[in-house]
């Protein structure tokens, strides 16, 4: 009884967040704001379904499996990265440094840094012809001692 209530509760939570997320995607005006809606929906909405599924199969069906845990893990891994990239591309394509708040560090927003010229020692332009794999491993030694 309690179990069923619990499972139902998670399902309802999942449904609500799914709905809210989808609604937000349509309703919110600004692109950066809109970004929040689907990420919440995927983490919390799908997360709720997964917990409900796990509970159901562990206790009602007596068949515990790690599948849901894995799905959750991957969701938690991928959702923020996706959001991060969407935000980055939005900044890159639609915003200027002046549109953004100050980073309060000695460096600006990473998206506006030109990888090649902010720190010559850090990156190098390699216009040589392709060096076959294994031919030179100097870069590895330099990079990994950091």
């Amino acid at each position, binding site marked *: 009884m309690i179990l069923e209530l619990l499972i139902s509760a998670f399902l309802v939570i999942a449904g609500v967040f799914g709905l809210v997320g989808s609604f937000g995607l349509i309703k919110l005006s600004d692109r950066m704001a809109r970004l929040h809606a689907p990420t919440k929906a995927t983490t919390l909405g799908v997360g709720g379904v997964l917990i409900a599924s796990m509970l159901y199969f562990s206790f009602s069906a007596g068949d515990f499996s790690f599948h849901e845990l894995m799905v959750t893990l991957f969701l938690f*891994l*991928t959702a*923020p*990265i996706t959001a*991060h*990239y969407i935000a*980055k*591309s939005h*900044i*890159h394509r639609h915003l200027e440094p002046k549109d953004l708040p100050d980073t*309060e*560090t*000695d*460096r600006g*927003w*990473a*998206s*506006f*840094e*030109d*990888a*090649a010229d*902010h720190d010559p020692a*850090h*990156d*190098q*332009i*390699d*216009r040589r*012809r*392709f060096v*076959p*794999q*294994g031919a*030179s*491993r100097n*870069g*590895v030694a*330099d*990079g990994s001692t*950091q």
Partner: protein
Amino acid sequence: MTLFLIVLLPFVGALVPALTIRAGRDVCAAATGLISVTALGLLLAQAPAVMQGEVVHARLDWLPWLGLNANFFLDGLGLLFAGLILGIGVLIILYARFYLSKTDSMAHFYTYLLLFQGAMVGIVLSDNILMLLIFWELTSLSSFLLIGYWRHLPEGRQGARMALAVTGMGGLAMIGGMLILGDIAGSYDISVILENRDAIQASPLYVPALLLILLGCFTKSAQFPFHFWLPHAMAAPTPVSAYLHSATMVKAGLFLMARLWPVLSGTEIWFYLVATTGLVTMVVAALIALFKDDLKGLLAFSTVSHLGFITMLLGFGTPIAAVVAVFHIINHATFKCALFMPAGIIDHEAHTRDIKRLGGLRRLMPVTFVIAAIASLSMAGVPLLNGFISKEMMLEEASHTVWLGSDLFVPVLAPVGALFSVAYSFRYIGHVFFGPVRTDYPAKPHDPGFGMWIAPAFLVTLVVLIGVASDAMVGDLVATTSRAVIGSSELPYYSLKIWHGVTPALFMSIIAIVGGLVLLSAHRPLERLWRAISVFEAKAVFDAVVESIAAVGRRLTDGLHDGSMSRYAGVFFVTVLAAGGLAYFGGAVGAPTRDPLPIAVVPAIGWLLLVICTGCMIAYHRNRFLALVLMGVIGVIVSIGFAYLSAPDLALTQLSVEVVTIILLLLALNFLPRETPRESSQGKRLRDAAIGVVGGLGVGGLVYLMLMSDFAQPTISAFHLENSKTGGGGTNVVNVILVDFRSFDTFGEIIVLGIAALVIYAVTETVLRGETGRRLARWMPPEPGAGDRHPLMMVVATRVMMPIAIMVGVFIFLRGHNEPGGGFIAGLIVAIALVMQYMASGFAWAEARQRFPYHRMIAAGVLIAALTGIGAMIAGRPFLTSAFGYFQIPPMEEFELATAMAFDVGVFLTVVGAVMLSLESLSRIARHAGETVNLEPMDVMPEETETPEKETQ
């Protein structure tokens, strides 16, 4: 068995020069010579039997159902020609050792020479006309290599191309003729064909077959009007000219006419075609030769003339003429080869072959003079030399030949040809060796070393010996060969004597010699006249013809293939639609035998999404990025469709392929404009749209028809389902089909995949080196790229995912035989795991940490798969038969091991290697376009960024 060896030795020996050249040029020449000497020795060991009248056979069924068998036979004719080819080959190898300069690659030369030798011996010993055709084309190819040996010279290349075009074309015609001939005779074996004279000559296809075969022979033997290629082939080094263009290759046409003489000759058409061509060639070429200033050009046209001489004799169709032809083949080979070699010596020493710049060499080069003089006199037909006897016999035959009712035509023209022949022969002696010693030779001429003149000296000795004592020297050989040519053991009466009595031929001979001398004395005015009237340049005509054919070809190709994708697609679609329409409306399409299933909710949603995506694709296809996203969506829906329709293997594969494709396309998209420009007019786009719509409807209709009806025949699926577990040891039928039932297909496919990846690699490499590469290096992205390309979050996440993803790959691989999965999908998954690292930290950074080169991975994959297959052969089973068994190691459950798993490893490695190599090629383009290589895994390293303490808000 020996015959196989004789033919194979030069081919196998062609490897020897390259292997021995490091030990020095002498060793290389000696080793090459040894090959030819051995082959010659093997041949001579058979000679006594052949001289007794035996025919040595060697048979090997190769493709009997095609009538293509590696059958060889050695009779008199084969013995003569093989002896000439191998014997003169030895002399040429010796001569070339000293002729080639230090900068010429001797190994190349000898390799080509041996290949040619093998092909030639193959022609003359073949008992199967299909084999003969193969060798025939091989001589064309290897002579192309030999003529173009000095590839830095444009004349060499053009001459080689012309020779290949003319002889190759003739060879193609001959294939047709030979196939007809074999068809009439009911066998492709020459020994069978030779016994079917009556059937062949009675056949209505006799004339076409004859015409086609003669076209091959005439082009090969440079008969008028195909004679023009031979002088241009003289751009070859002199050993090649001496070997190919006097002694052997140009005689291949004669050989074939002689070989088929018993079945083809004796008819009117044969007589008029062959004899007339021969006669015209003999006279015209001799006339041209008289006015050639290039020493080798003169010899080339004299060769053409003498080939005409022999052709004419074969054309007469009488046994006695055939005997004379055989005799003259021997004589011509000896004296003409002995003439070419001094020409090469003169060129070598004086640095010119222009007769106008030579003269007076008699005192400077006495040895060369003696050799060249004797050979020239023989060519002129002066008594006591071998050329005299055969010429006498020819004139004797010509004197009583009636041509179109005229008994004067041949008897007059033949001596005229002989007269010109005398004139140019004497010109060779007179204008090169006699006269005053000059001071303006390009180089100071003197006699060459022993090595260079010994070969022609040997031949000249033969010339004299055969001339003085023909019967003793070559009487038996001529008799044996003639029997083979005539095809009967009865020989007509002839006598190889110097003195035949006072005959018409003797008078003709005298007239020819006297007339030739008169003509030579009047050479200067005649030459002016000749220059004035000869406006006809064969090479220009040939070039114009080739150019016009090429232009037509180009127009046709450009019309069909102008590089426009939409045109290709249009042509293809319309063709397929037409074929499909024809099949649908012309054939009988059965009524539907199945009822449609009701549509469920989930498929309906999928279908709707597909339709929407496709619609969006049409609307937004000019925005390339959006198009790619839509493609991704479509791919995912298709994968889901597979999963829904119980094809998990397909779904897994499709999904992985989608991921990889989208990543590769994204990389490529970097270098493309954002928008596809509008390049076609409205009308064209409407037309294309119409084709597209009709095509789509056609495909849809086809699918509908297929789904609504049962197959006409029972499918093979039931067999696979039944035998998968028992025969292949796996319950995943898809995988068992891939690695067992149809593993040979898979084997081919992974090879294709590997080749495709290597081609992508090679093409990228080429593109980057050329103009495109320079343009790419100047390329600036349309807008500056975003900073922080390798953000921390992505880097960390992919590092975490890497072992998990690879574990999944291994898991998918291991379960593949019984559950959905397998090497192909596992390969894609592992590739994706690696690609993630590239995406996170940049290609170069990630690659530097990757220890296995992708080329090797592909190679290892293909090799492992092949070795698995061969393993079955070692166990006595057919290639790629798999074996499996069940094993138990105590704590674990019983498990299965199958050899198919090793095969699957091969598939796996090839897939990983191929995907990664393509990716790497794209990354090379990116780096060429100026993309930076980061030394550290991420752009902003956390410990570097010293964030000042910040108040939390």
